[in-house]
């Protein structure tokens, strides 16, 4: 069997906030078509890893390499990472009062098009695209004229994240605790949305605490992150085992 093309390759990644080292040597390879789950106790560095990959500047990468789709990811600005096909679904999506969802997404989509040398979408085509993508996460069209995430419930915010993902069609989506704050119905809608967006040439990293999300988004590989390192990598059965036994047996094992 020929292995799929490598999309993301992380080698010995170290990152700090101030003088506190949070990532202490991450190695991770993700290929097209794969879904990886990253689990781990609180404070193990899961959200830091996603923030560093997305280009948040309050983290300092002290050593290591990250190659994404043939680019040195760490040299790119957050917007360039987005153009190259990286998408982060935020654990806590940001509210932007005064910027409507429709303006926000139109600006984002047209910047992506500009990057690809395409003309901006006209208003009619854009609205058509937006409506079809909103259906993926069963989002009410009235949300398009509201301020980005303003007054949205936890579930609506997460749906909005997946809607944005659908609009931008990333190569690699990082879902940072997309299940947190979701009831069962919202979880199913969000997970179904993610599954609908799966293609042979894209990939996803699912960061979660719970098996529950992984019942819907079935991972190919499960990693356990602890104190800034991946301490265990196995198949999807590892998630179920963690659900039953916790992390202690891995940490102490």
């Amino acid at each position, binding site marked *: 069997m020929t292995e799929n093309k490598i999309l993301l390759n992380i080698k010995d990644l170290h990152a700090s906030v101030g003088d506190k080292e949070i990532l202490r040597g991450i190695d991770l390879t993700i290929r097209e078509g794969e879904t990886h789950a990253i689990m781990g106790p609180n404070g193990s560095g899961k959200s830091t890893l996603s923030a560093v990959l997305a280009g948040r500047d309050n983290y300092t990468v002290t050593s290591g390499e990250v190659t994404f789709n043939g680019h040195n990811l760490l040299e790119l600005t957050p*917007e360039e990472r*987005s153009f190259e096909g990286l998408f982060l679904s*935020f654990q806590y999506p*940001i509210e932007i009062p005064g*910027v409507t969802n429709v303006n926000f997404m139109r600006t*984002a989509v047209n*910047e992506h098009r500009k990057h690809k040398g395409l003309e901006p979408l006209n208003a009619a085509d854009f609205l058509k695209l937006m409506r079809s993508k909103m259906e993926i996460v069963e989002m009410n069209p009235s949300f398009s004229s509201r301020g980005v995430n303003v007054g949205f419930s936890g579930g609506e915010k997460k749906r909005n994240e997946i809607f944005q993902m659908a609009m931008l069609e990333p190569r690699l989506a990082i879902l940072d605790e997309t299940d947190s704050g979701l009831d069962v119905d919202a979880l199913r809608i969000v997970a179904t949305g993610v599954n609908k967006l799966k293609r042979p040439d894209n990939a996803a990293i699912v960061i979660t605490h719970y098996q529950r999300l992984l019942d819907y988004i079935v991972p190919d590989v499960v990693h356990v992150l602890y104190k800034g390192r991946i301490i265990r990598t196995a198949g999807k059965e590892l998630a179920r085992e963690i659900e039953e036994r916790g992390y202690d047996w891995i940490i102490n094992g």
Partner: protein
Amino acid sequence: MTENYIYAPAHNIEGGFRCKVPLPGSRQIFMIDGGVQGTGRPLDIRFRKGEISEETLQVIGIRTEKHPEDISFASSYRFEEGSSAKLILCSHTFAENPFHTDEKISITMEAGASADVLIMQNEHNKATHNTCIDIHLAEGASLNAVILTIHGGAISNGITASLDGRHAFCDISGLYLVDGTQKVTNSLKVEHRVPECHSRELFKGILDNNAYAYFSGLIHVFPDAQKTEAYQECHNLLLSRDARAFAQPQLEIYADDVKCSHGATNGRLNEDELFYMRSRGIPLKEAKVLQQLAFAYAVLDKISSAELKERMAVLTERRLRGEFSDCNNCCRNCC
């Protein structure tokens, strides 16, 4: 409406000035160097009792090189009982002289009158313009005023609103966009003299470079003015370390059954919002503009005409983008 001016179509104005904001159904009056075009007399407008004016009256005040000296003048607008009208008051500078203008505007709203007033200030960097606005509201009168300070060297607005009759309502807001070494001052005094009146003020500023903005707002509730509702807010967004904004909110309350509040903040662009937008592919520069427009929106939203609001939003956006691109072949010299 009684008028003591000569209506002048736009093409008669020197320098080929064309207003960028002409609304269909608006009537324009030009005030040249403090006097009504043609007569040179002060402006005195009166909306007759019960008159509901459909068209917008736009008063375009301009300074020209014919009168480079300091000038001072007064205009008066009286809304008689039950009348209703819309006003746009603009000020521009048509030559590069360091103009100094002192202007007094009196707005008298008789019982039950209502008005929408937009004041649009767009002058060049050497201009100093002090505007004193004296507002009186009788019983049941209602005023919605928005002051948009787009550009100007030193712009100062001193506003006194006196709520003299019960159930008077007054909403005054301001948006000031200040950069370079520009200075903008807004001083407000809202006097609740009788019971059951309602006032609101919202002032927001975006400051860059070495700009300076000062806001002082006093809400004065007189001893008899029970059931007053008076709210005031001032927020500044500072884009540079060297920009300075001062806010001085004040409440003087001499009645005991009132609802009053004030709030003032000075802040900078929100890093989390910027990162969120960038992570979706919106470049930093664009993300900053979006955030500034979002900040400004609450004031623009007070403009009741949707069409006028849209035009002011476009003007605001162009200003924030530094895109007053037609400046080279325009006579306004506003930047």
